[in-house]
């Protein structure tokens, strides 16, 4: 068994074989492997890795070359007939290699350094979604990347491409069905979202892994003229979960919303880093990240808004709200601005609060136990964020995942009178 600790170029070839690489992809992998080998692991001296220490991870625990499921919902017939594609990465490489080549690895911007090269060299699963010009897909596309084996290693890659005027909603979920306690795993994922001119993408990414997962994710979104992106990140599982989420507003009129929700208990560690990068005038970005931490869980939020000299009349907002549910839970919040244009609007805010005793008392006076009362307040804390999701089914999926994590059974779906 090969593990991450003794991984070699051989494993690159094996992965390429399993996936069924065209030559160009194999070449990309080899190049990534060279950079991977030459790059040291980041240390806590680096700003982005200050709060998440992976230096003591025993990489020998994670076996490479494990196969795990990627389950996809089916595409509407009409959209498929009009050229939309929604399939596993391996299938896309077989059926649409030229199209995939245009996007896979097109962008090598990364702040994750070695880990990003690792993903590119070993990409072993994932999916490809392509919506051609003017095609609008109404039903959410759902993909579930599953981990079931102890010590499994996953290098998923999500690619979503919306051409001009296209619309889609994608629900990208990472989950461990029936994982037993004590099972471990390592995921290093890369997500690339290309939102074309006047296209509209709702992208919901949720990880509700088992608690033994080490989860790293780097998400990169590019928005063209008048493009609209709403990208939501739901972080519930894993013992360490570190996500880097970037929205690059490349052309005038682009609008991006970044939302994040995290609930941690036990000794879970969450680290979210966001980038709202305005490269063009009249671009707008908004961001809301809400984290609730219980027990000894810890959350770090660092976010940077960048306005380049070209980004005149751009608007950017950023808000990070934290709710601490125990005396030993922690939340760090570090907003950062880098403004190089003079005519922009930029606001950011952060807060760290606790559950109010008066709220607990009020709910308890109605017969709710302290646990249910607290969980209800946590749900309430998240609800404005969940309300921003485009579909009732997605809202309920997130509510249910939060509910499952909290362990109390509170009915939350909207019921009309």
């Amino acid at each position, binding site marked *: 068994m090969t593990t991450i600790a003794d991984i070699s170029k051989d494993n690159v070839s094996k992965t390429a074989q399993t996936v069924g690489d065209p030559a160009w992809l194999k070449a990309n992998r080899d190049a990534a492997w060279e950079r991977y080998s030459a790059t040291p692991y980041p240390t806590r001296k680096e700003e982005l890795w200050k709060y998440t220490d992976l230096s003591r991870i025993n990489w020998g625990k994670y076996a490479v070359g494990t196969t795990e499921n990627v389950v996809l919902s089916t595409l509407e017939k009409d959209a498929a007939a009009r050229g939309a594609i929604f399939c596993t990465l391996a299938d896309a490489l077989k059926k649409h290699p030229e199209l995939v080549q245009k996007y896979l690895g097109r962008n090598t911007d990364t702040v994750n350094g070695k880990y990003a090269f690792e993903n590119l060299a070993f990409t072993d699963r994932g999916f490809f979604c392509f919506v051609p010009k003017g095609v609008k897909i109404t039903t959410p596309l759902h993909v579930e990347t599953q981990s079931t084996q102890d010590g499994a290693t996953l290098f998923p890659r999500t690619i979503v491409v919306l051409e001009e005027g296209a619309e889609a909603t994608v629900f990208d979920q990472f989950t461990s069905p029936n994982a037993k306690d004590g099972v471990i795993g390592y995921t290093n994922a890369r997500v690339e979202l290309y939102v074309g001119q006047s296209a509209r993408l709702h992208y919901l990414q949720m990880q509700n892994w088992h608690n033994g997962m080490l989860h790293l994710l780097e998400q990169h979104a590019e928005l063209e003229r008048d493009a609209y992106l709403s990208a939501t990140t739901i972080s519930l599982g894993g013992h360490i979960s570190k996500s880097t989420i970037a929205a690059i507003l490349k052309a005038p009129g682009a609008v991006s919303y970044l939302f994040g929700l995290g609930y941690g208990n036990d000794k879970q560690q969450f680290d979210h880093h966001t980038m709202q990068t305005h490269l063009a005038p009249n671009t707008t970005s908004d961001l809301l990240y809400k984290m609730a931490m219980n027990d000894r869980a810890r959350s770090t939020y660092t976010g940077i808004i960048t306005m380049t000299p070209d980004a005149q009349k751009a608007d950017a907002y950023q808000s990070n709200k934290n709710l601490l549910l125990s005396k030993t839970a922690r939340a760090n919040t570090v907003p950062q601005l880098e403004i190089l244009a003079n005519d922009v609007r930029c606001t950011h805010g952060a807060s760290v609060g606790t559950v109010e005793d008066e709220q607990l008392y009020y709910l308890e006076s*109605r017969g709710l136990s302290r646990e249910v009362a607290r969980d209800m307040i946590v749900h309430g804390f998240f609800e404005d964020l969940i309300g921003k999701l485009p579909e009732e089914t997605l809202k309920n999926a997130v509510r249910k995942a939060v509910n499952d994590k909290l362990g109390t059974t509170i009915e939350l779906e909207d*019921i009309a009178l």
Partner: protein
Amino acid sequence: MTQPLFKIEDLKVSIEGKQILDGVNLTINAGEIHALMGRNGTGKSTLANTLMGHPKYEITGGKIWLAGQDITELEPEERSIAGLFLAFQYPIAIPGVNVVNFLRAALKAHRGGDMPIKDFRILLKEQMNLLSMQQSFASRYVNDGFSGGEKKRLEILQMAMLNPKMVLLDETDSGLDIDALKVVAEGINRTMTKDRGVLLVTHYQRILDFVKPNFVHVMMNGKIVKSGGPELALELEKQGYDWLGKETKHENQATAN
């Protein structure tokens, strides 16, 4: 003799070391409505919240009985399940939790299981109609951005849904216009039964024209200093509390001598 529904025995309470209630005694039988009046800051809400089990209020003496059960040491949720209900003077907002889900959870806790969604919907609709509440109200977040009147209505709606044995109403009439007052009073009267007891804290005779009390008590300095029939409220309305102050001072002196 049948046992009283609700009994407060020599209740003494302090907050952060400061004594607020100085030996309150009160017995409420099933079917009775008692009004509790008194100046600001005399301890009426302290009494109501202590009865409900607010953790901030420390009971330094006395006992509380509900239907023969000593509830002095119970948690608020246990008191609620036992059949006690407090309509808050200042209801608390729970952002993000809508009225429907909140009521569903409360009802579930009381019934020990979920109510079929259909039945729940029918019950809620009916009760909301009776309180002249629009249906959109149900999907709003609990007390979040509610007007004073809306908050009080929601308290009454909760009471109607949970159907408690013993109801404490802390200034449910305050801040209501006359129409809202009527709706709220009707809500109290409609759900009143021969098995229920009510303790209604108020500053005004106004509500007592609609919700007729059997007894009226006056609180001063953390004690009930005078009790009487409905006429006592009318007297207080006319004369204020000053005459009582003198009267009780005399009484106190008399006992001291």
